[in-house]
């Protein structure tokens, strides 16, 4: 059972709004190739975590009265997320995404960047028709943080001096802020009270950080067929994530060449070392700390037991997921 089924969220509705964003886009008729790339990307599936969070956030307000607005917004945050994935694959030179060829693998880097930018433009165009300035600002802040996180990641390639604090700052920027924005925006659209929306925003930061930690764990532990991209890819490409930071002393002792960044063999050996070390358990332990904090925050919200139950299911999903 996938995440949306577990939460009793109408997946078909999200997919319909997501495809309609582009199928109803007159300008896109100008390029069948671009249109096909975008629709294929949408149909390749995905966890739809961000829509799930937005819809769950809306459950803390008057969801039933705002259902259509909520589902439309959910589709739009997923579209923004897709545009960032397309750009990420160009930045990381990844040829696979969700077990299919990435957009840059299919069409080249130049076209992939333009495709990602187009998705962003179209989403902003439609989003501009919604009047809630606070949501615009929140999503915009999340996007800016994401860009900063990406920039930090690129600038810190093969920088093995990164510590846990710097890693967490990058994770909050790259992933957690947008996730937080989704929860907050859902609550805002459904006119939840301000205090509840703020609690959800803070819990979102904790959930998002935990989510990124698990993403980084899975890069090492899952096999490439399930993950949809090669195992240990982050380290080979110079992204220094939490599993690497925890195993650094051991890597330095056994495969010092890995710390130079240009010894591919040593890097591959470091990947195997990390899988066998206690680094992964330590990462899950830190992830759990963030999720426990998030749960304690959510418990303070009065009422809304259904919405809380769904949010707890998302929290559980963050650590239990396999991709």
């Amino acid at each position: 059972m996938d995440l949306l089924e577990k939460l009793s969220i109408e997946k078909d509705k999200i997919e319909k709004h997501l495809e309609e964003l582009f199928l109803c886009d007159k300008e896109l008729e100008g390029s069948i190739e671009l249109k096909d790339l975008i629709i294929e990307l949408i149909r390749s599936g995905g966890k739809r975590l961000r829509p799930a969070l937005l819809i769950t956030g809306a459950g803390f307000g008057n969801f039933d009265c705002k259902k259509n607005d909520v589902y439309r917004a959910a589709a739009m945050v997923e579209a923004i997320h897709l545009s960032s994935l397309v750009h990420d694959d160009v930045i990381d030179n990844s040829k696979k995404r969700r077990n299919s060829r990435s957009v840059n693998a299919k069409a080249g880097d130049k076209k992939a960047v333009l495709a990602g930018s187009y998705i962003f433009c179209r989403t902003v165009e439609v989003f501009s028709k919604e009047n809630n300035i606070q949501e615009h600002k929140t999503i915009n802040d999340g996007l800016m943080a994401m860009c900063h996180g990406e920039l930090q990641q690129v600038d810190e390639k093969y920088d093995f001096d990164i510590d846990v604090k710097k890693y967490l700052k990058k994770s909050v920027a790259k992933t957690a802020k947008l996730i937080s924005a989704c929860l907050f925006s859902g609550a805002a659209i459904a006119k939840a009270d301000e205090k509840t929306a703020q609690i959800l925003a803070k819990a979102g930061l904790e959930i998002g950080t935990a989510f990124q930690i698990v993403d980084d764990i899975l890069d090492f532990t899952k096999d490439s067929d399930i993950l949809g991209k090669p195992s240990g890819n982050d380290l080979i490409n110079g992204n220094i994530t939490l599993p690497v930071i925890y195993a650094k002393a051991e890597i330095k002792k056994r495969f010092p060449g890995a710390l130079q960044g240009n010894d591919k063999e040593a890097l591959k050996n470091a990947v195997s070392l990390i899988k066998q070390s206690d680094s992964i358990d330590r990462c899950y332990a830190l992830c759990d700390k963030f999720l426990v904090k998030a749960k304690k925050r959510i418990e303070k919200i009065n009422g809304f037991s259904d919405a809380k139950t769904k949010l707890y299911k998302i929290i559980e999903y963050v650590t239990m997921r396999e991709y």
Partner: protein
Amino acid sequence: MTVPAFISKGIMENLIKENVENIINEYIKHGRIRNYKIKKKLIDSIFKELNAAETDIDIMVRRIVINYFLNEAYFNHCAVEEENKNNAHLVIYGDIFGVLYHKAVIDFDEIEYGKKLIGELKRLYIDAFINK
């Protein structure tokens, strides 16, 4: 603020461009784009394009800033080449400028104007895609 008739065009133009540069600099700091040099020629060309249509200084300044970020987003993204080591920064800076554009639209309460511009940008991206 509408331009008073007795103030020379040259003075008003300098005032507008100075304001534009100052505002862009503040946004660049927010975007954390390091070592960025403002493109005065880009400001000039946007100014010329908008000047015929607009006489209110405040509106001119806001819209030059908004157009500036949109142009920078487009230029950076179009500068990406196949398997080039600069691609990562071009993509990210292009994205940052895109987000700064959106931020400026919100901050200046120019949602309607922003919608019109984004429609034009979509057409530019499609043309660039077709011609790659």
